[in-house]
């Protein structure tokens, strides 16, 4: 099938990209072949003065390289070879004697951006659907078709590094400002503008203004200045990645090499590094994760889902208003209920303030803010709940209270209304124990802050009909969430595996370890925040409550549980919310609250081995994840990986607990666990399923 459609408009070739087999255009071998053929045609056809490249998709130019190409290649050499082929075509475009103009609307990612960079002229639409990015770094890769060479040459080294190193989006405003875009026009004028540009530049070179600032030029235009830039970039990157991600420093190296050795060598070198990065376990884990995450974007029960229009959210605190805010993103009307209207309105105010930040940044207009905000209906009564399709409660974590709320909501709503509890630990069947419609009760566990944390953990019970799960799933997708569906049980999956993790951190503290060291060690391991900083954020009281709900499970297995969280709560330590936690919150800098050591044996702290800390804490989580799979809480290892990464910040480059076990080998992990069990006791006893996998030499994932 042809992806390229070539039409002549006068003396200009209009090349429309439209892959008939895909929702979005992807850069793959087929496309590259067809572009090569087209270039031959363009070269030989004397009636053509140049070409424009435009997309036939609704909101997409090219979504990036086809990742199946990566999967099909096992070695660094094969990947390098693939990159070289792409480089050649793009070089041919860059050196083509007739002007080739990229006309971009919609998402333009990775290879799409690199294709655009090789063109002679770029016109982009002013729509906020238009997003330009070199997103390879997010997959543990470096751009492999000239991205690290052409972007810094076009917009400047300092301007390009953030895009290269974080993969962040460049919107039309920035594209115009940096000089990535030569023109910004309405999407309907793209073609016309492109044709005019071809005619204008048919016989002369494109001249563009250097948009770099004065100091940028001074630094970038000489070798010494560049040295400073690169060394600063390395320093900053090392601080951010903690050495866990190999791609970012290699990106800086690739840019550096290109400036030293010239474009041609730079491109060759880029291909080489691309190959090397493609076979790192980090990249493999991230690419896998990308695939798996994309799979969760499809609701497995879509056809059974009921349509949702009105949503009720109970509790207008941080969690409730967060859930409300993600719910209005796609146009649901949300009734935000709290006991007092003032509190419900306060939740709306929080959302207003969040939206206002986007107005200040000119991401949305004041009208768009009003439009979104109007969808929030603060209330202190259930009077309008008859029309709710879904009610999500985010009230205090207390079983009696939740049961009372269930009764209230059942009385106020219609029979089809789904009741979702945003409990973080209480079993759904307990919440539903006295319900009239227990089958309509499901768990929808969000993570705080809801606007930022991608995961939604849906908890179904053995009484939950498919339509209820499917409808909750659909709502979650509309809220922009990455979703896993798990079975009911205390703490379900995410809370169940974070509890022993926190418990171990507290036990380490009881043994004399240092708060700052533990938090730093876990960040070095790859978690975004350390366990104590996390506990302060979540609330020590919440942590204590969770520990209480789960303690039976751990005690039954003979595990030692720390009682310190409860002790701390009794002494008035709740974490950030009352400014009394493992850290101090009054000063400018976050400092360890050394007062808290009085609960952990005094001010003298021992320095422990970083690895001991890391593995004791991480292994508790990993082993518990295996228990969850063994007990049927988890329905697949993939859910376990996604849940741990997107809900708890498990290091993405390790691929999740199950990928990590596969990567290290179940037998290795088993040995390790047994060692820990010998040294530290029963709580490290490996899950039966882990033993079985080790014995049979099996992996959790087939690929």
């Amino acid at each position, binding site marked *: 099938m042809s992806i390229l459609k070539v039409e002549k408009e006068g003396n200009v070739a209009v090349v429309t990209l439209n892959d008939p087999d895909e929702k979005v255009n992807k850069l793959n071998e087929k496309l590259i072949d067809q572009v090569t053929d087209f270039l031959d045609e363009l070269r030989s056809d004397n009636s053509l003065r140049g070409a424009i490249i435009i997309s036939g998709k609704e909101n997409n130019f090219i979504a990036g390289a086809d990742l199946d190409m990566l999967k099909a290649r096992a070695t660094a050499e094969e990947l390098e070879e693939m990159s070289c082929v792409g480089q050649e075509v793009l070089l041919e475009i860059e050196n083509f004697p007739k002007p080739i103009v990229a006309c971009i609307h919609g998402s333009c990612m990775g290879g799409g951006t690199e294709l655009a960079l090789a063109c002679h002229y770029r016109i982009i639409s002013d729509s906020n659907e238009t997003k330009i990015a070199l997103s390879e770094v997010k997959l543990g890769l470096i751009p492999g078709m000239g991205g690290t060479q052409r972007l810094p040459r076009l917009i400047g080294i300092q301007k390009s590094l953030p895009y290269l190193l974080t993969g962040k989006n460049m919107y039309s405003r920035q594209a115009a400002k940096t000089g990535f875009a030569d023109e910004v026009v309405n999407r309907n004028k793209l073609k016309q503008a492109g044709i005019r540009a071809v005619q204008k530049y048919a016989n002369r070179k494109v001249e563009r203004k250097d948009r770099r600032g004065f100091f940028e030029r001074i630094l970038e235009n000489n070798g010494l200045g560049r040295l400073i830039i690169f060394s600063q970039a390395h320093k900053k990157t090392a601080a951010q990645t903690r050495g866990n991600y190999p791609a970012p420093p290699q990106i800086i190296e690739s840019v550096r090499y290109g400036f030293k050795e010239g474009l041609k060598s730079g491109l060759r070198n880029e291909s080489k590094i691309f190959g090397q990065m493609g076979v790192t376990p980090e990249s493999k884990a991230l690419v896998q994760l990308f695939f798996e995450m994309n799979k969760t974007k499809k609701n497995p029960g879509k056809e059974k889902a009921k349509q949702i229009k009105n949503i009720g959210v109970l509790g207008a605190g941080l969690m409730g208003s967060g859930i409300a805010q993600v719910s209005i993103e796609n146009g649901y009307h949300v*009734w935000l209920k709290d006991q007092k209207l003032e509190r419900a*309105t*306060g939740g709306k*105010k929080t959302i*207003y303030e969040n939206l206002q930040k986007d107005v200040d940044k000119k991401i949305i207009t004041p009208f768009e803010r009003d*439009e979104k905000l*109007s969808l929030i209906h*603060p209330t202190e009564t259930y009077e309008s709940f008859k029309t709710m399709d879904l009610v999500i409660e985010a009230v205090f974590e207390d079983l009696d209270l939740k049961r009372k709320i269930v009764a209230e909501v059942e009385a106020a709503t219609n029979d089809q209304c789904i009741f979702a509890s945003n409990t973080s630990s209480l079993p759904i069947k307990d919440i539903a124990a006295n319900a009239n419609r227990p089958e309509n009760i499901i768990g929808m566990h969000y993570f705080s802050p809801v606007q930022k944390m991608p995961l939604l953990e849906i908890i179904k019970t053995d009484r939950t009909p498919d339509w209820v799960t499917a409808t909750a799933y659909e709502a979650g997708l509309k809220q922009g969430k990455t979703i896993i569906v798990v079975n009911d049980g205390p703490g379900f999956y995410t809370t169940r595996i974070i509890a022993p993790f926190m418990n171990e951190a507290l036990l380490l503290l009881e043994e004399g370890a240092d708060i700052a060291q533990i938090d730093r060690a876990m960040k070095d391991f790859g978690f975004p925040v350390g366990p104590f900083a996390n506990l302060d954020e979540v609330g020590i009281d919440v942590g204590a409550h969770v520990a209480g709900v789960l303690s039976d499970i751990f005690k039954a297995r003979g595990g030692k549980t720390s009682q310190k969280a409860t002790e701390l709560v009794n002494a008035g330590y709740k974490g950030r919310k009352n400014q009394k936690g493992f850290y101090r919150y009054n000063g400018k800098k976050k400092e360890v609250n050394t007062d808290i050591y009085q609960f952990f044996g005094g001010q003298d702290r021992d320095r422990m081995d970083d690895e001991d800390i890391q593995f004791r804490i991480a292994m508790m989580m990993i082993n518990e994840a295996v228990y969850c799979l063994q007990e049927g809480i988890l329905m697949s290892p993939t859910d376990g990986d996604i849940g741990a990464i997107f809900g708890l910040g498990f290091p993405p480059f390790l691929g999740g607990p199950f990928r990590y076990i596969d990567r290290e080998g179940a037998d290795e992990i088993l040995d390790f666990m047994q060692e820990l069990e010998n040294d530290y006791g029963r709580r490290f006893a490996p899950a039966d399923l882990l033993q079985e996998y080790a014995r049979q030499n099996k992996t959790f994932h087939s690929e």
Partner: protein
Amino acid sequence: MIISNNSTHEAILAYGGRIPFQRSLTAYKDLSAFDLARLALEGLITRSGIQTELVDLVLMGTVIQDVNTSNIAREASLAAGIPKNVPAFTTTMACISSNAAVTSAIEKIRTGQNRVVIAGGVETMSDIPIRFRKKFRQKLLETRKYKSPTDFLKFFKGLRPSDLMPDIPSISEYSTGETMGASCDKMAAKYGITREEQDRYALQSHQKAAEATEKGLLSGELFPAAVPPRFELVTVDNTFRADTTLEKLAALKPAFEKKYGTVTAGNSSALTDGASAALIMDRQTAEEHGIKPKAVFRSYTYVAQQPADELLIGPAMAVPVVLDQMRLTLGDIDVFEFHEAFAGQILTVLKALESDEFARERLNRSSRVGEIPMDKFNSWGGSLSLGHPFGATGTRLVTTAANRLEKEDGQFALVAACAAGGLGHAIVMERV
């Protein structure tokens, strides 16, 4: 004109309400009319829980238009989470603009064109458009044609400093140049309404509003408004004065006719900001969605007369029309909700209805329409005390009438209102 109601579709009031009315330049002073209208629509959706996909049309009345949002119904509807494919238009008919929205909704439903219509109204007196004077406006528009810099010299030619003074619109009749207050003053004098009667009526209106607010009778139709960016809640009207006395009212100077005038700030409705909205549905559709009608709209009429002498007598002309259509008498009516522009105006209307002479000369009837029992009249306060955001009052009247029918266990309500231009309106509602 007689409006028959033999259509198969009955229009009912499902829900109605308003954001609390506020004296201008108080709680809503930073908001535009667009904001107020949006808040009323939001409140209606919050209270009713209506699935907005059901809405077919949005209508809003307004008097003083902001040029930026001249079709304010559309702008407010777009921002209030009503689907973008729902059309909206703005009605304007002076103080009965939102009555026009309500009756347009009724027609849409009776003719089967629509099933679910939102009708409301809005007015801000805190943000009225103030213009440059004609000469300066003209000069400014001419600059668009200027080509060379020297052309700008022309700009100042013939322009006097006084031309730069702003032009603040006043509430006066375009056709007669007379302010509404002065006109009312004349009319009250003609019908022999004394200053004391007016003050006494105004006092009662304030007392009734205060009592109704105190007892929470109005809470069913008040949509709490949270004013951004602070989101402080406005939950009650701040328009009435619970502590006013006859002495205080008597001490006020006439506001319009300085010498012999009887109309004062105290016995007139105040400049008010506010917005209202009602959900008007086809009866059958409402029942299908489990919505209990508050009241069915029956006969209504609009009347008009020469604006010069009796600008605000309209209700006295309109009431007999709808009563006759319904074959009802005043005695059959349980709830009266009349717009109170001025105490002098409402007392004139009441007196006219009680007058055989008025009936013979003006209504072509053999005898008077009748006496309205005051214990059934504007029991929860009226425009004098609750305020009168011009474009929003009509929806308030029908909503309060329906709520009172329920509270007072009545069957028929009669709503009437006067308006600038010599216009008048009356409508009968029935509880079902």
